[in-house]
């Protein structure tokens, strides 16, 4: 199975400029770059962990940090320099969410397998002559958006990001095994934690991966309700990505058992993280927007004409209120969630697929540990339950008032990123308690 995603060049092209990183030192066998990480506060309010497990204020590696990394690697590629690169931080690194982990793994995999440049990300200390890497003396707790665990026992210990990936050269077969976290002899039971696959464009490819994914969740002890919900979501989003983006896509699922506070009690829950992304020139809302606003002939094909006029009048209201935080691009993302079903095999994103996604996030993302969003271009929409409540007619306003037409989304429901996502990326996180 090849892991190279179609249109990866778009990802590189859009993100290679303006890297803020500068080389701090050049050892005989490594370039060292110090990461420019962002300070973030971790909300531990409903996670049952020891108070001192992770510092409240930590340094986060985000998709914007990844943009810096892409800039450095692609610059070295341009210059024809193949010496390995270590991106380091003196403090423990926290990954902001699983999409960031997954996307970073992919970039490092691509750089090695296509450009022959090995790179990794690690905590470490350095001076002008030496670099001490991969030092985790106290097995610190690491948090990656939803999953908190000791670095050596959590799924991050199997991650392609960390140092072991770049220490020695490997052949392409071994590289793929490491990227997909499959058949790795030196990490026991790692296959129970994570399932990654690239779904190709063949008619049955998505169904085969989804079938494998179900088997993985069953083996990992996920309750039946969880398996059904996750399968429904993957079953909609993955085929959508392939059909709409006309490209292949990556699916990355991982499970972690966690303890959460619910009704003042500590309960065991299974957290399932689901990351899906594809690279394409087509953004989430662009095709639907084109039909509704720029082509009356196409708009007339859309089944629900009353919804088109509602969206057009909402647009009149929203565009008067555009600002630096809320723009036309956000509105384009928003319309995808307004239950407009294109007819006759039209992209299902606007219809059934998104409805299924929303029903599931409404049901299974009710704690602070769920950080769900969809990212397309430079814009993201939060999908957590509190933002995605529908009004009586099924419109979603992404605000507390549940109002789409006469109210713009809450300021924290729309997000912007300097990282540009060509295509569509989902970062979803569900939790399932024993009661279901």
């Amino acid at each position, binding site marked *: 199975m090849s892991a190279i995603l179609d249109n990866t060049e778009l990802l590189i092209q859009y993100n290679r400029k303006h890297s803020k990183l500068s080389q701090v030192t050049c050892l005989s066998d490594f370039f060292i770059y110090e990461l420019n990480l962002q300070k973030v506060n971790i909300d531990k309010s409903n996670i049952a962990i020891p108070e001192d497990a992770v510092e409240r204020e930590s340094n986060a590696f985000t998709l914007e940090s990844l943009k810096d990394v892409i800039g450095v690697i692609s610059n070295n590629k341009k210059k024809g320099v193949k010496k390995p690169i270590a991106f380091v931080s003196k403090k423990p690194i926290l990954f902001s969410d699983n999409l960031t982990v997954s996307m970073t793994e992919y970039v490092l995999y691509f750089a090695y397998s296509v450009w022959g440049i090995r790179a990794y990300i690690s905590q470490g200390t350095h001076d002008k002559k030496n670099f001490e890497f991969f030092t985790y003396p106290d097995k610190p707790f690491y948090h990656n958006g939803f999953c908190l665990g000791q670095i050596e026992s959590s799924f991050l210990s199997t991650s392609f990001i960390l140092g072991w990936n770049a220490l020695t050269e490997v052949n392409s077969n071994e590289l793929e095994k490491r990227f997909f976290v499959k058949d790795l002899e030196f990490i026991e039971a790692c296959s129970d934690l994570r399932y990654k696959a690239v779904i190709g464009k063949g*008619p*049955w490819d*998505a*169904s*085969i991966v*989804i*079938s494998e994914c*179900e*088997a993985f969740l069953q083996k990992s002890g996920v309750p039946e309700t969880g398996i059904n919900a996750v*399968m*429904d979501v*993957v*079953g*909609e989003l*993955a*085929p*959508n990505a*392939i*059909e709409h983006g006309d490209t292949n896509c990556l699916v990355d699922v991982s499970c972690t058992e966690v303890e959460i506070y619910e009704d003042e009690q500590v309960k065991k829950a299974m957290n399932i993280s689901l990351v899906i992304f594809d690279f394409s020139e087509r953004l989430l809302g662009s095709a639907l927007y084109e039909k509704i606003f720029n082509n009356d002939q196409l708009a007339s094909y859309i*089944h629900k004409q009353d919804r088109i006029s509602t969206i057009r009048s909402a647009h009149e209201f929203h565009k008067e209120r555009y600002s630096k935080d809320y723009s036309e691009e956000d509105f384009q993302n928003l319309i995808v969630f307004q239950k407009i*079903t294109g*007819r*006759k*095999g039209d992209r*299902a994103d606007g*219809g*059934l*697929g998104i409805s*299924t996604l929303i029903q599931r996030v409404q049901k299974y993302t009710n704690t602070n540990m769920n950080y769900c969003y969809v990212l397309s271009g430079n814009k993201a929409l939060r999908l957590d339950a509190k933002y995605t409540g529908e009004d009586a007619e099924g419109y979603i306003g992404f605000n507390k008032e549940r109002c789409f037409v006469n109210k713009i989304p809450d300021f924290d429901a729309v997000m912007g990123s300097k990282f540009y996502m060509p295509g569509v990326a989902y970062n979803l996180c569900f939790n399932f308690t024993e009661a279901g």
Partner: protein
Amino acid sequence: MNRIEVDIPKEVTIVAGPIPGREAYKLCKDMIDIDDVNMLCFSEHVSRIIGSFFTGFFEELCKDMTTGEIKEHFCFDENMKCFESAKDAFEKYTQNY
């Protein structure tokens, strides 16, 4: 009643998305008799049908048939393992188109 065995590859236990729907339609379209009731049967290794499978399956037929006519002329074998999920996905399809 016109019984149609829908051919699904052995390694697929969950059938998902419109693309397999289109593919499955291609494989069995010659067996469909739109004047009769067609009973679709999926083999035992298929445990669930999810997502927009029927959007793809009925893409061609819905050019000439209304959703009501499709509902009248298609049904599922109640004994098959994926009966419940097939029924749900079919209902979701007919409600939305």
